[in-house]
């Protein structure tokens, strides 16, 4: 089975891009499946099912979705094999700019949209910086110049990535993406593989349910801001 991880900010076009790329892959029906990792709610399963794509959804709840991802990715692989998938794609809603669900040796795709502002690539962090492919959506809405500046800003943050423009509605551009997906090597297990980037240590008292404010309640790993004059 081939494994591909797709991440990106909410509503950037991940599901649209994945669906159009699956169509462009031209593989037999129901042989490409998706596991969606989200935090609270998601309606993506409906869209995948409508398109006859096998799908599972996991909700991280109060845990960071990327931490949740690592804990559950092997389970996702097991599900994929049980379903006899030839390709498994994971979709993660990147909510925190500090994390990224990328595994060494596994094709990692970051989806961002042109509308999010030209400086966004500089703010997204590891999710963009450690991606192999950066897919830029919604280019149909912005000017050519903004697309060029956006791509440039991506390159400034991640000069190794391939930048691919995809229209999530028409599928324009998914042709190239499908080609990269199909070239991915087969993987049997993820055991002992490593993440591309360490996830932050979330071990302060608030991580474990503390709600009260005040120095007295703040235990564990803390970082205090320094205020200027």
């Amino acid at each position, binding site marked *: 089975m081939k494994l591909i991880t797709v991440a990106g900010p909410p509503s950037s076009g991940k599901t649209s891009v994945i669906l159009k790329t699956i169509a462009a892959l031209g593989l037999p029906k129901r042989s490409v499946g998706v596991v969606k990792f989200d935090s609270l709610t998601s309606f993506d399963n409906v869209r995948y099912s409508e398109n006859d794509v096998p799908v599972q959804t996991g909700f991280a709840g109060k845990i960071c979705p990327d931490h949740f991802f690592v804990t559950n990715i092997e389970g996702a692989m097991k599900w994929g094999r049980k379903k006899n998938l030839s390709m498994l794609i994971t979709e993660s809603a990147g909510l925190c700019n500090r994390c990224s669900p990328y595994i060494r040796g596994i094709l990692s795709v970051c989806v961002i949209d042109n509308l999010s502002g030209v400086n966004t690539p500089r703010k997204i962090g590891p999710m963009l910086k450690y991606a192999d492919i950066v897919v830029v959506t919604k280019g149909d*809405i*912005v000017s*050519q110049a903004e697309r*060029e500046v956006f*791509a*440039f800003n991506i390159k400034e*943050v991640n000069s190794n990535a391939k930048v691919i423009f995809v229209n999530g509605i028409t599928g324009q551009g998914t042709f190239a993406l499908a080609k990269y997906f199909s070239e991915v090597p087969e993987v049997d297990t993820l055991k002992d593989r490593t993440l591309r980037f360490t996830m932050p240590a979330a071990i302060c008292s608030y991580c474990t349910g503390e709600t009260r404010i005040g120095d007295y309640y703040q235990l564990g790993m803390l970082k205090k801001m320094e205020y200027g004059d």
Partner: protein
Amino acid sequence: MSSDTCAYDYYGEVMSTPLYLLLEKYPLSADYLANHRLNNIDKSKPLLSALTEADIDALEEFGLDAESLVLHFCKFLEAFTRSHTCDFGTIHSVTIIGGIDKSGAAENVSLTLHPGEIVSIVGPTGSGKSRLLEDIECMAQKDTPTMRQILINGVVPDDERRFETGGKLVAQLSQTMNFVMDLTVREFLEMHAKSRMVSNVEAVVERSFICANSLAGEKFTPDTKVTQLSGGQSRALMIADTALMSASPIILIDEIENAGIDRKEAIKLLSGNEKIILMSTHDPLLALRADKRIVIKNGGISKILVTSDEERESLEEIEKVDRVLLNLRNSLRRGDVITKDSVCGIKED
């Protein structure tokens, strides 16, 4: 990922040169420092020495230590100087080899276009005009629904060129495009110029601004926010910018006619820089200004017409009709009552 070797070309320089000198030589370095929250480090020293004194906390958050940051920075310099010098070579021609229409019938055409050539694409809505533009954009290789094939300089483009130019071979303009940046016209042009790494930013920005204003019906200042431009002004700025600043040798235009711009000037400007232009249009003023026009029917290229002398001559008449309509539109806007005279075009603006 294979750029490690090249990155070492910069290693010696980065290790020995004080930062302020590097910043002068490679202005983009400032962005790199800002992206890593390192804008405030000591610039009188080379990067590594400056880093060892700086707040190492910030570095850790980016998953880098001082030494790996230096290497990473070398790769950054390498990537940008490379993209600066390496473009797509020269485009001599683009060839469209016919595929099939929506019913599967063969198109039986082969059309080769050269720099400076303008081709219009006409046909009913839904006939496949945008599809043809898409085929060119993705350099179709009998792998799109139309089975068309696109050749660049007479040969099949390699995958590198097809997929990794980040859309740079082709620039697109369409009616649905807007500006979303929160910048003034001047800042916007400067930003684009910077990303294109042009050497004389100020001159190019100035020229683009003047051109945009000459295309727009209503004038605007360089301090106007791009998001506040009217539809016509936006389109004018996009066209001027694409013509003068975009490096893409091929321009695809999808129905931009009702935009309130000087279409004649726009076409002249776009084609002036030895670009290949394909435009889907319903507008006779644009269609007849092209050298050739492709007629699309049922998803296929049904005819390729060369604009005849008679058609060119009739452009003048069409322009008159167009002016009458424009004047009528303006009268309506002003709240005038439309008379038979205004319809006959006697009352010019």
